[in-house]
């Protein structure tokens, strides 16, 4: 089987064996949850409760503000203790609602009336997805309803389900594919229906043969659905790469997938859509992988949104003595944490506790102009130049070299033998360039 791929990229050690054979476990109810009002890209939701209110699971606590936004629901029954800034895993404090858990009775959970997936209209699907507060599970947490509502002039002809899970360690999407194949196909069909598309592709990296086999057998008799095996290579799961591999189309800089007629959704997003339509559930739990050599008992977990990382880590037996780094997200794009009192959010895909030998920290030397980063950058940028321009405050040059195109995938920094924190410099330069651009536009 020859698997398809794109140009560039790297293949880090996978470490998936730590959790890939562990079925999802349900995390018990936490003592309290922290619900940031902005767990998505776009406008912050506006609170609908006040201090002292009693809430039940699934109840709306903050409603969407504007088109690009998503509502927030509580994941537990309890009492609103406070509304205010709380630290989050992104590193920045955000306005949040803190709820102290009082009951654990699940039957009280708020549910929308289930819809029949066969008869639901595109508008009904879109409305339900919006009300259920579904955001992309692939990392960016973009409100899904928006993606399902493309502008009239865009012709979408393919929906791609992103089953790459190209980040090492993470096995959440894999577990979904193994445990809930039918639900995810149902979710995919709902997306296709909402977009009026009749081609659906599930892209899976070839390091997950069981998932490929299982899903292939399921879609064999489904019209318009296919499973594509992709070469195992980071960042195969990045939108632009996946579209290129599956359809051969390239998304131009500054453009969106829908500009080339594609919509990409994560596996977890499809499952959430299925749950919202067929079961009437709102998005109040996050499926995630807790892994790394620094955690005593790695697991795949279903966790109520808002649970603190500390709680989750404790539940998994705590950290080992040689743990040095805790990351929310995958090891290539995730954010290192200094405070464990931060909540799991809707799109949190993993919590990793890494030991010294996993995060090999090496001394930085000047760039050797080896070109590895350039060969590896999937977007054909010149990371070494971007970083150097940024270091020397030459932002115009950086802009000219395409710094704003960078998706911060980290491939370049991974390969760099000189250990230059390329992504950090590029991120800095990107902010400066965007700032300069805004100033220019104002003028």
């Amino acid at each position: 089987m020859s698997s398809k791929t794109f140009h560039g990229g790297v293949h880090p050690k996978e470490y998936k064996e730590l959790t890939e054979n562990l079925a999802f476990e349900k995390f018990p109810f936490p003592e309290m949850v922290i619900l940031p009002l902005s767990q998505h890209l776009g406008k912050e939701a506006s609170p609908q409760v006040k201090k002292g209110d009693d809430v039940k699971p699934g109840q709306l606590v903050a409603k969407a503000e504007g088109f690009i936004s998503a509502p927030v629901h509580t994941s537990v029954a309890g009492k609103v203790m406070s509304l205010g800034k709380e630290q989050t895993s992104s590193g920045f404090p955000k306005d949040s609602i803190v709820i102290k858990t009082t009951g654990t009775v699940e039957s009280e959970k708020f549910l929308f009336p289930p819809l029949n997936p066969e008869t639901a209209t595109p508008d009904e699907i879109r409305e339900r997805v919006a009300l259920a507060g579904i955001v992309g599970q692939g990392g960016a947490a973009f409100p899904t309803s928006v993606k399902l509502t493309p502008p009239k002039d865009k012709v979408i002809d393919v929906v791609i389900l992103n089953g790459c899970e190209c980040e090492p360690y993470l096995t959440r999407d894999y577990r979904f594919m193994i445990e809930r194949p039918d639900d995810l196909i149902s979710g995919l069909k709902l997306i296709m229906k909402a977009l009026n598309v009749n081609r659906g592709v599930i892209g899976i990296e070839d390091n997950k043969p069981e998932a490929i086999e299982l899903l292939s057998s399921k879609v064999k008799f489904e019209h318009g659905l296919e499973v594509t095996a992709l070469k195992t290579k980071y960042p195969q799961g990045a939108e632009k790469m996946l579209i290129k591999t599956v359809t051969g189309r390239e998304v131009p800089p500054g453009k969106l997938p829908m500009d080339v007629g594609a919509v990409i959704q994560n596996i977890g997003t499809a499952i959430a859509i299925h749950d919202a339509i067929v079961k009437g559930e709102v998005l109040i739990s996050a499926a995630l992988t807790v892994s790394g050599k620094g955690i005593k008992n790695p697991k795949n977990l279903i966790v109520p949104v808002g649970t603190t990382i500390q709680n989750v880590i404790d539940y998994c037996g705590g950290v080992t003595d040689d743990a040095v780094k805790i990351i929310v997200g995958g090891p290539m794009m995730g954010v290192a944490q200094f405070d464990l009192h931060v909540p799991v959010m809707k799109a949190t895909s993993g919590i990793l506790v890494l030991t010294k030998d996993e995060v090999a920290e090496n001394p930085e030397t000047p760039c050797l102009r080896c070109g590895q980063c350039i060969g590896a950058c999937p977007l054909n940028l010149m990371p070494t130049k971007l970083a150097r321009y940024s270091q020397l405050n030459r932002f115009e040059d950086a802009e000219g070299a395409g710094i704003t195109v960078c998706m911060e995938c980290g491939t370049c920094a991974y390969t760099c033998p000189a250990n230059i924190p390329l992504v950090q410099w590029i991120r800095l330069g990107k902010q400066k360039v965007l700032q300069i651009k805004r100033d220019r536009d104002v003028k």
Partner: protein
Amino acid sequence: METTTTIEPKQKVYFDLTTSPHLHSKWTTSKVMWFVVAALVPSIAAALTFFGWTQIFIIITAVVFAVGTEVSIQVIRKKQITWFDGSAALTGLLLALTLPPNFSLSATAIGSVVAIGLGKQIFGGLGYNIFNPALVGRAFLQAAFPVQITTWLKPNFAVDSVTSATPLAAFKFDKIFTDTVPMAIGNVGGSLGETSAIAVLIGGILLIAVGIVNWRIPLSMILGMFLFGGMFWLINPQNPTPIFHIFAGSFLFGAMFMATDWVTSPITNKGMWVFGLGISLVLVVIRIYGGLPEGVMYSILFMNGFVPLINRYTRPTIFGAVKEEKKK
């Protein structure tokens, strides 16, 4: 909306906070440099076998002075001392291997000082130099002591201090061709490191296999040789065959170890093709029309000068961008 935080964090844990990516490939600068040194072991062994163990003194002198110069300059400039990253030692070693056997030790030392001083540190040190430092050192020596550096020892275990023409000189001045087999084994006159093509290839293939050397440079140089060398050979069969060109002199050594120096070769894949083909073209012209029998060093240095331009004009097209017209 109230803005007070009601719940104090239970505990703060300060972990390693470096930014993503949190994983890293296994290579580091010093690992790479020492690995290249290791890949040169077969060539060193061949040199000692064919020219006698005393040649080790040339190697030691070159390495010691290279490292010494590096450290001295770093001390003067109040920069971090980084001799252990292996790059200076590697430069010294490579310089030694491009010198003729029995070359004077004092001149070797001068070469090392020039290689590191003028070839590398004056540009700001590791990573900033434009020209291959070892070759800057050698070119300096060749210009300073042209007679000494073209006096070649006959490779033999017993006979001492007998000069002999190298295959290239034999071709250039007397139109005599040497067979490929002795050139491959190393049984011919020439610089320390280049004598045995087989030893060079072992090291080079190792470097390609682990991904340190980008295969595009050696390959494009060899293809370039077939292309340009072949062209001149077809025009006039008096000229050497491409095979002779490849096995004679320091072509393979240069292709595997010197043209591939990361710092001084192009950073783009397309650029590497241009670079390799360019080296071969210049080399063939020098070997056939020039006054000097060999030109690997000159052709690499010449193309080093073009690297910034090559990088600029072979900038990869950003993913998805329509190929824009060349700027300005």
